[in-house]
């Protein structure tokens, strides 16, 4: 083969397999899983597939760490495989993150797959492939690779969303995600075309080089291309007004898939978005910064405000993820190294938060994956203290409670915005953070504050506001309930009454059966909570990682 090519005058570029190793491991792992599945070994329990997936994640994590060492040992990032792959701190950081997501998600999805009796390896194979797409997006040095990575990331997610055929919502989620995703990737491709036309290349480094010599900031074609690309990215990361698929898809998709999707899509989307707009299009920053500014504000506000009125926890977490996307956009808007590493840090910690949160939601969802109203968390603090504690910590971290990673994430992006003199944005972000805290705390409150309704006895209509306000608030239960006192407590009580009155008659549902955690799930949850708390108290490692990850190829 190579002989033939050589005689034809082809010079096959050197393929640095170490640079590609994590992606290869992911794809190889997926194919291995499918192969084992195809061998038709009977009675192969789901946990075997989960374990293999986890092992694949560990292998690619090791490869990622090896690459990280290589990049930092050599002291300079480099491009590989005909300059279409950038191996730098940034890409390896995301490789490590994607591997970690795979590990945690393989641990956390196992209980669900066993519970629902899903036997095949397809679920895990799809997550592995999707993660390889995210890695490619992060490491891409060429728009074509970004585009292909985007599709490798997204198409498995469409399938995962539509996977649960017993629930009509799942199919609906898949269809919506797919139609809108295809629409946005068409826009994205058109953006690539225009950018290509304006710069003569699809290679990020070459585009950057071209723009640094020939730039005119009002080159219309280039601006149009960048604008269309931005739409594609913003769709992927669920920024307003390209967010509308998010709540529907999050709600409809099988719950563990939702958690995975929320983490990995943000990883891939933000990795490529940050790289493209911080490197190739950095010269245009005066043009795109205002756009990001507006989009960030819309995203922050819509995420926070709409999250308040949700009754379904998956939907609420979807809006929360939109709100978080707004925070991450703050880092991009700053258009500084500081902003990049803050955004990276945020993506990093958010992945664990969202995986863990959805894992608990999965467990509470019960067989059939249907119990997702916030009401179904009532009294969880008593029924499942550890599970409730884990969810409480993860939600409080998302709300930005001190001594958690969530607090530091918000702090860093806001600080980056402030040092870029985006004061208004910083203030709005903090305000929406405060609003969003209300709906996180509402769940915590429901878990701890109210006793599970005794069997047969309907929840009494709370004896008017006096009892609700006096009796309820001190029992907010978890430590931080109080420190957010004014807004949250008031809102909590208000929403509580509202939901209470609405769900009142039906909420005499039978007490849920005790949830048994498998070792894998417990380990996965412990990992997410551990990361959240440990790195909240001792953030230096992740932050220095994020800091050196802002070392970019270009």
């Amino acid at each position, binding site marked *: 083969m190579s002989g033939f090519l050589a005689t*034809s*005058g*082809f*010079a*096959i*570029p050197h393929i640095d397999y170490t640079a590609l190793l994590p*992606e290869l491991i992911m*794809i190889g792992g997926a*194919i291995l899983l*499918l192969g084992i*599945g*195809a061998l*038709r070994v*009977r009675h*192969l329990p*789901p946990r075997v597939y989960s374990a293999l997936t986890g092992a694949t994640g560990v292998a690619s994590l090791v490869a990622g760490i090896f690459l990280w060492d290589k990049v930092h040992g050599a002291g300079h990032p480099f491009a590989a*495989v*005909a300059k*279409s792959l950038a191996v730098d701190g940034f890409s390896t950081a995301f490789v490590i993150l994607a591997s970690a997501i795979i590990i945690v998600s393989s641990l956390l999805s196992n209980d669900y797959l*066993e*519970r*629902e*009796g*899903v*036997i*095949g*390896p*397809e*679920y895990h*194979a*799809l997550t592995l*492939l999707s993660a*390889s*797409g995210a890695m490619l997006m992060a490491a891409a040095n060429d728009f074509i*690779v970004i585009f*292909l990575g985007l599709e*490798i990331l997204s*198409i*498995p997610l*469409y*399938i995962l969303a*539509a*996977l*649960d*055929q*017993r629930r009509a919502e799942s199919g609906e989620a898949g269809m919506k995600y797919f139609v809108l995703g295809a629409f946005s990737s068409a826009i994205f491709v058109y953006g690539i075309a*225009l950018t290509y036309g*304006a*710069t*003569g*290349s699809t*290679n990020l480094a070459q585009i950057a080089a071209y723009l640094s010599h*020939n730039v005119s900031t009002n*080159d*219309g*074609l280039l*601006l*149009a291309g960048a604008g269309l690309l931005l739409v594609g990215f913003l769709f992927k990361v669920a920024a307003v007004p390209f967010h509308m698929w998010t709540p529907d898809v999050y709600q409809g998709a*099988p719950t563990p898939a939702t958690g995975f999707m929320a983490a990995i899509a943000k990883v891939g989307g933000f990795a490529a978005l940050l790289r493209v707009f911080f490197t190739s299009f950095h010269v245009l920053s005066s043009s795109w910064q205002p756009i990001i500014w507006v989009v960030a504000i819309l995203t922050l506000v819509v995420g926070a405000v709409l999250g308040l009125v949700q009754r379904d926890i998956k939907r609420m977490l979807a809006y929360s993820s939109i709100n978080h996307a707004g925070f991450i956009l703050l880092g991009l808007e700053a258009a500084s190294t500081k902003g990049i590493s803050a955004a990276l840090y945020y993506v990093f910690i958010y992945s664990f938060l969202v995986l863990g949160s959805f894992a608990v939601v999965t467990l509470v969802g019960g067989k059939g*994956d249907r119990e997702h109203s916030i009401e179904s968390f009532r009294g969880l603090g008593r029924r499942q203290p550890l599970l409730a504690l884990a969810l409480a910590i993860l939600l409080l971290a998302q709300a930005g409670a001190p001594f958690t990673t969530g607090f530091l994430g918000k702090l860093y992006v806001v600080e980056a915005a402030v040092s870029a003199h985006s004061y208004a944005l910083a203030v709005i972000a903090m305000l929406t953070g405060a609003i969003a805290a209300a709906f996180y705390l509402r769940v915590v409150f429901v878990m701890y504050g109210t006793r599970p309704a005794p069997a047969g006895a309907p929840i009494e209509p709370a004896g008017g506001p006096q009892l609700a306000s006096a009796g309820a608030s001190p029992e907010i239960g978890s430590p931080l309930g109080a420190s957010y006192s004014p807004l949250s407590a008031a809102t909590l009580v208000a929403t509580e009454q509202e939901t209470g009155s609405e769900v009142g008659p039906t909420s005499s549902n039978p007490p849920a059966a005790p949830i048994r955690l498998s070792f894998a799930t417990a380990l996965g949850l412990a990992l997410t909570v551990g990361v959240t708390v440990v790195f909240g108290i001792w953030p230096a490692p992740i932050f220095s990682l994020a800091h050196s990850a802002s070392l970019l190829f270009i």
Partner: protein
Amino acid sequence: MGHLLLAATVPDSLTFAVAAAITVIGALGVVLSRNPVHSALMLIMTLFGVAVLFVEEDAQFLAAVQVIVYAGAIVVLFLFVIMLLGVDRQEALRSEPMPAQRWLALGLGVLALAEVILLAKGHWPTGAHAVAGRARVAGHSNTYVLGRALFTTYLLPFEITSALLVIAVIGAAVLARRPRGQESELDEPTAGGPAFGGENLGSNPSDRALDGPDGEGGEPVGDVLDEAEGVTVVGRPEQ
């Protein structure tokens, strides 16, 4: 702008005009046909028009691929699904449950078009130069040039498209499977059932077309079916 068109040679101009007309009419046809089958056929028309334009622009190989892959495979797949779902009926285009939607869509689409053209300021060429390698090389066909670029500059993208195809295969296999609830109507009744994809790959007759390597063991079909049932019923841990 008319004089520019006149500057081109007559056959070129004519070809372009005809192909462009075919393309646009086809596109409008896709959007305006009431019957999805007609839409699909109109899509083929557009694809042919684009293929002609490709030829006109010295991309002969792509023109061929366009016809073979797009018109030959993708649109056929569309038609297949249309027939499978039995939706080859006319859609009432005149009624629109969301009245604002249509006008907004039209307005926004036209605006987007206007904006893109405005941004290009009518002179699309930007003076950027070739980077990836020249498209027209004396003594080499378009296919050769394309192939060389594919295996050198674009080697990585070429390689990773394989992942895309794997995904497509898995997707088709997983999604085409009937959920247990429906299957049990035909076969033996089982309580509950796997949420999705309860079987291994290739356990369902409809999948076998897609997993070629899997089925090459030469097993008799009946065996596969039996085994598939065995897996779905027995192989599900009750936890």
